[in-house]
């Protein structure tokens, strides 16, 4: 019965699908998948994770990070100068750049784009908050003047979510009343090596090579991106050979026994597993806090949580941001910790973690809870909506005692870490640590231009936070890409989370 049914199905399709087999030359096509749909293709209006790799081959910024490093290099700008007072940035644009609509890119187009990026209705406008003025004195020069010196400015431009130049098809032809937001949700006019050809919301996207690209042509003619929300199905598709790689969320436990047709690339990014401590509840007691730190110690649970794909973090900055000797050591005397807990009245703590990364945070949170139990501290583990975590500070008495989350800064400059997580008014200072002297130190460190001195200032800030028991480093977890043998040229960059470089990716041998 089976062969007949199979034959019938195939036959029906063959009749219905004429031209399925064509004589056209074989194309190089890359097949990938996202776990979530792409929210928008507007580079100024969303913190994309799914779609970030597509976005960076459609649009390009003035500067970017070199592969494997946090060093800056030119992208659409071939060079730049910074004035002595640190206020004026002059960018010399590359010649011969064309937008996907065919029009050449001039400095005036870049200026028009940067004006759009500053529109307060756009989510990512704040990247240019300190800009005072901009001009395009000639076709290849674009100048930005800042209101205050901001040594992290170039890093903000190179950020995964930094400004990326949009062309006149959007900003002139489709500007409308909403700054082309509606049009850019599903269309693009970038300068990158790929054009967005197909947008099928919730199902699939297709990128095709842009023939007039200013740089070397990429290897793949097309990139087909499917939205496959189930990891189990992505794994089967990868094994089957109908997907070429998985760059988001490959389960660590599955990395031990990869089939021979698959390879794996693990690398460090700027993500850092941190523990925020609520000092307005029981952990305001330094003795109890010290006992709790003994249980939090990642040495006790890291292997079980990440199967060897994480190392204990020893600073509040990822190594890719500041490479420094260990700044923090967790206490490890379990007997002393038990004695401290025994001397206290019964303690119950609450450990919280965000729902947006529940799969990654649940196991560490539960392992920490188990370690706390072994010391005699009862701990409840609870998942919270991530946007609720942003308002914990409004009522810290109701917030969890410990908050565990995986955190990405906007860019590779330590200011983007300190200003987002450590400052008193930082948006992700989840459990409301406030210390005016730390805020002053963050503000003054943000003005330092010498890298060594800058790093030392930021490390001192981190040491203070850790000594106060406010924020603690837990782990640096590897980013993992699993791919079919034969692919190469991934060129991961620490500052671009889970991003494969489609521009340099190639297939060296037939994969199937």
């Amino acid at each position, binding site marked *: 019965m089976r062969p007949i049914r199979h034959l019938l199905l195939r036959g029906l399709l063959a009749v219905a699908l004429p031209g399925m087999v064509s004589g056209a030359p074989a194309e190089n096509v890359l097949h990938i998948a996202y776990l979530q749909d792409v929210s928008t293709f507007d580079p100024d209006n969303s913190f994309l994770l799914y779609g970030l790799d597509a976005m960076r081959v459609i649009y390009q910024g003035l500067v970017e990070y070199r592969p494997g490093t946090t060093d800056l290099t030119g992208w659409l700008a071939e060079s730049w100068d910074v004035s002595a007072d640190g206020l004026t940035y002059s960018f010399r644009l590359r010649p011969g750049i064309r937008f996907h609509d065919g029009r050449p890119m001039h400095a005036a187009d870049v200026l028009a784009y940067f004006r759009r990026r500053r529109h307060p209705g756009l989510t990512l*406008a704040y990247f240019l908050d300190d800009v005072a003025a901009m001009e395009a004195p000639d076709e290849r020069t674009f100048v930005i003047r800042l209101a205050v010196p901001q040594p992290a400015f170039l890093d903000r431009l190179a950020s995964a979510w930094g400004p990326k130049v949009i062309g006149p098809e959007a900003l002139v032809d489709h500007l409308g009343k909403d700054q082309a937001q509606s049009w850019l949700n599903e269309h693009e006019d970038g300068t990158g090596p790929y054009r967005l050809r197909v947008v099928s919301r919730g199902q699939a996207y297709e990128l095709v090579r842009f023939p007039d690209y200013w740089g070397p042509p990429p290897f793949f003619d097309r990139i087909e991106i499917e939205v496959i929300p189930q990891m189990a199905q992505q794994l089967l598709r990868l094994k089957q050979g109908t997907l070429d790689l998985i760059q988001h969320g490959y389960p660590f436990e599955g990395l031990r026994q990869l089939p021979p047709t698959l390879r794996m690339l693990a690398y460090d990014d700027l993500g850092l597993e941190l523990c925020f401590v609520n000092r307005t509840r029981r952990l305001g007691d330094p003795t109890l806090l010290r006992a709790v730190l003994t249980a939090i110690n990642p040495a006790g649970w890291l292997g079980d949580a990440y199967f060897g794909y994480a190392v204990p973090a020893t600073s509040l900055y990822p190594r890719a941001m500041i490479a420094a000797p260990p700044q923090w050591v967790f206490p490890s005397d379990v007997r002393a910790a038990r004695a401290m807990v025994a001397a206290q009245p019964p303690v119950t703590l609450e450990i919280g973690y965000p729902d947006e990364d529940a799969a990654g945070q649940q196991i560490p949170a539960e392992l920490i809870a188990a370690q706390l139990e072994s010391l005699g501290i009862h701990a409840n583990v609870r998942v919270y*909506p991530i946007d609720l975590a942003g308002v914990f500070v409004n009522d810290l008495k109701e917030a969890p005692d410990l908050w565990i989350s995986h955190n990405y800064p906007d860019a590779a400059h330590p200011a983007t870490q300190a200003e987002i997580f450590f400052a008193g008014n930082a948006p992700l200072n989840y459990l409301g640590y406030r210390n005016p002297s730390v805020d002053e130190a963050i503000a003054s460190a943000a003005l330092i231009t010498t890298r060594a001195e800058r790093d030392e200032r930021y490390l001192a800030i981190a040491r203070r936070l850790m000594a106060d028991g406010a924020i603690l480093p837990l782990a640096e977890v590897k980013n993992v890409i699993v791919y079919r043998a034969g692919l190469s040229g991934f060129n991961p960059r620490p500052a671009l989370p889970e991003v494969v470089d489609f521009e340099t990716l190639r297939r060296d041998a037939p994969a199937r």
Partner: protein
Amino acid sequence: MIGYLVARLVGALAVLAGMSLIVFTLQQIIPADPARAAVGPTAPLTTVQLKRAELGLDQPMLEQFGRYVQRLSRGELGTSTRTHRPVTQDLRQFLPATLELMSFGFLFGVALAVASALFHLSSRIALLLRTLLVALGSAPIFLIGQVLALLLWYRLDWFPGGGRLDAQLIPPDGPTGFLVVDGLLRGRLRICADALHHLALPALTLALPLSAAVGRTLASSIKGVLQQTYIRTARIKGLTDGELLRRHVLRNAAPASLAMLGVQFSIMCTNVMIVESLFGWPGLGFYLVQSYATSDLPAILGVSMTFAALYLSVSVLLDLLQALLDPRVRVL
């Protein structure tokens, strides 16, 4: 009959109004910040406040409710904080996929239910089929979906494991949004065949629980009707089995099955979300799951209202059908 219809419609509208109130209340008490969700976790407070004002979240609750009712009366459901598009536009895009899947799942389920109930009448071997249906239909939907996908897609490669259409095919631009129908209307048989091919697994997954429950109800109703004296009289009058089934048995056995169909449809509205996620089916369930992951409240509420309206419409339709088949229902 018209009075009955009006009463049912008024009832449905009242339920919908109540539902909108519940939805608004939920929006207020859910511990989520749509403004923060919209601008992203690292955006500074000023950006969040701007977004809050833009969404009207800084207004008193009563005023927010007034604006909410106003918007609803115009058919506006707000703007999705994830896709940055009006929710109604998103619904227009994702709803046809769900309706297509549910229609096929529903029809497939009813066909299987009727077949299993009738087979039960005529063949003992068919008991095996019914047992199988009940066993499959009683299992959790995600398990059925995974087993079917593993077997019929991964192992046997008979059907695609996910999606609505082959990635290389460009779907036609309407007019119905049902790819099978649009493929036929536009003369693009390849689209039609491929869409049917993709529909098979998710529709079957969706159909199995319905077919098991409705099939069982129909079978027992038929059994009960066959024991009635008027059936014996009809046989004596010389009616054939086919005539008997058509004119007396199915008509009298149908009301109970229709009631069960209504119950099963409400379950299907929940199951479709799981099935769409399992098979990467780009419909409302999939849209809801993705929106939930980003606390996109306008989208979540829009989908909830849509499913409520869908359920009420089908419910009214089934009530009417029941009233047509059994006049006693109209006076209840």
